[in-house]
């Protein structure tokens, strides 16, 4: 059974933060794909720019993934993947509410992720895990 991670992070409205958010979304897959592939548990991941109500600029970043097993079991691995680490720290850097505690180690990295994870109900069309799907195709 897969689980969702739904990180919703309202961001700062200054020009630099807005540009950083746009750049983060544009380069997201390029930055994280090696680490996510190596984890063997992530079905998909996307980083979405949520626009402000007036259509001008970005109100929040929304990182949505569906993964197998438990996220906590793999956070150490993700923390050690440069692309993923940079992507998460990049999101934290533009957050309207700065992470408390600041992200300086694995536990604070984890605290930030868990603190912005929204509750979500997940529909799943198939029961297979990423590892099972890859094993069937190999």
């Amino acid at each position: 059974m897969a689980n969702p991670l739904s990180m919703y992070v309202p961001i700062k409205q200054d020009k630099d933060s807005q540009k950083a958010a746009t750049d983060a979304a544009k380069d997201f897959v390029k930055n994280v794909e090696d680490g996510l592939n190596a984890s063997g548990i992530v079905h998909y991941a996307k980083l979405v720019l949520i626009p402000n109500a007036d259509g001008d600029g970005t109100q929040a970043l929304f990182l949505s993934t569906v993964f197998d097993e438990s996220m906590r079991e793999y956070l150490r691995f993700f923390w050690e993947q440069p692309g993923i680490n940079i992507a998460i720290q990049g999101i934290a850097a533009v957050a309207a509410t700065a992470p408390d505690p600041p992200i300086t180690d694995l536990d604070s990295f984890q605290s930030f992720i868990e603190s912005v994870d929204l509750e979500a109900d997940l529909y799943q069309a198939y029961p297979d895990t990423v590892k099972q799907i890859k094993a069937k195709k190999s």
Partner: protein
Amino acid sequence: MDCDPGPEPARSKLQGLIVRGYTHPHSTHMLFRFPGRAAAAAFVKALLPRLQSGADWGAAKPALMLNIGLTFAGVKIATALGSDLNRFPMVFQKGPTSKWSQQTLYDLGDSAPENWWAKNFAPGELHCIVHAYALDETAEKEIVAFIADAATSAGVEELFGTADKSRFTQAQFKDDLIQFGYRDGISNPSLQWPTSGKPFDAGTLDNFVLGYPACTPFSPGPAGDNAAARFAKDGCYNAFRVISQDVAGFETFLDEAAKGVVTTLGMPAAEAREWIAAKIMGRWRNGSPLVLSPDAPDDATRDVKAFVYADDKAGLRCPISAHIRVSNPRDQSVFPANFPAPRLIRRGMPYGPPGLEPGADRGLIGLFLCGALDRQFETVYAWMNQNTFSDVFSPKFNTQDAVVGARARVGVDTQFVAQTAKGEIRCTMPQFLTTRGTAYCLMPSIASIEAIAEQRV
């Protein structure tokens, strides 16, 4: 290993339960709720004379002694750490009922957190667990009365986590047996101090005691220079988990599973029962590991801790989903994202009456000590609930630990397979275990407990 672990902490700084497996035959595990900081301090202060450190007691083995654990709610009440409390790992802050913890523990149905502690109290009300040890029944009564009196005097409320509102008391079994009839507690981490230049060992003490993170990948926390990290230094986490065991169901399962063994392997039924009992555990009931004694239990191997699976990759001797192989894969390869395999310090004991008569609750009082509740304890649980961590499980990746897995979990295969030269033995594994309650506790250093007692922290 290219790192400097720093100086080894004096064992007198640590609570004794962390560094030594007590062999006291009597223990009682008492639960408490603090009404406030002053009451917590008074309670802890009253307990100090019997608080046991890890210092060598030589020939003078204490007749009675205790150790103390605090949940995050307990730390919050008993200290003035304030905003630094958020330096503690989320897994400790949120506790075992949280969504993220339940993604690994999968306490479903009767095991669900809403049913824990016989519904006598909510998990968040539990602040402190005192583990009392004694050499005999008289001493046990004395130490339990000592602790109960300390609580009453301090205005601290004792909580009871059983339907009949009794305490969790160690059952008397010979030869380290547990309710399912196996010898337990044979293999535990070495708890030696790491040495530069030697390969990483998940069993060294720095993986379990907080404050020495340089050489361990499990990042025991809180880390850094802050009040929470200073308070937690030389402490250790304890996943306290009370697990009811369906012994009658287990024995019935062996009867049924043995029929397939008799048919396939041509064994007498009694022998077949013990064969399947060994296959699901990975050890014979006397303790002999299957990789060393594949055909029968052997007194010469019953205490052996050092063995590997290199010559048994396919699981012909020890099945790949056998309990001891999943919970401690030893030399078996694990995926890079799962590396290294964690170890746990196990200090558990059986509770409840021996035997099979229905209506009585019996099982295991589990004390699983670690430096990182998620990256050690919960990871092992995740592996037991779904075997995904190694390519030996390919292509299925959805089998479970033969003894511990949550069978009601969606998407798992509850069939256990024992490979033999004459073909596969397959059996569908029932749910033998029900979680009665779980608490994540910090077992603070002796100095931090003294600081609580004097309200200095």
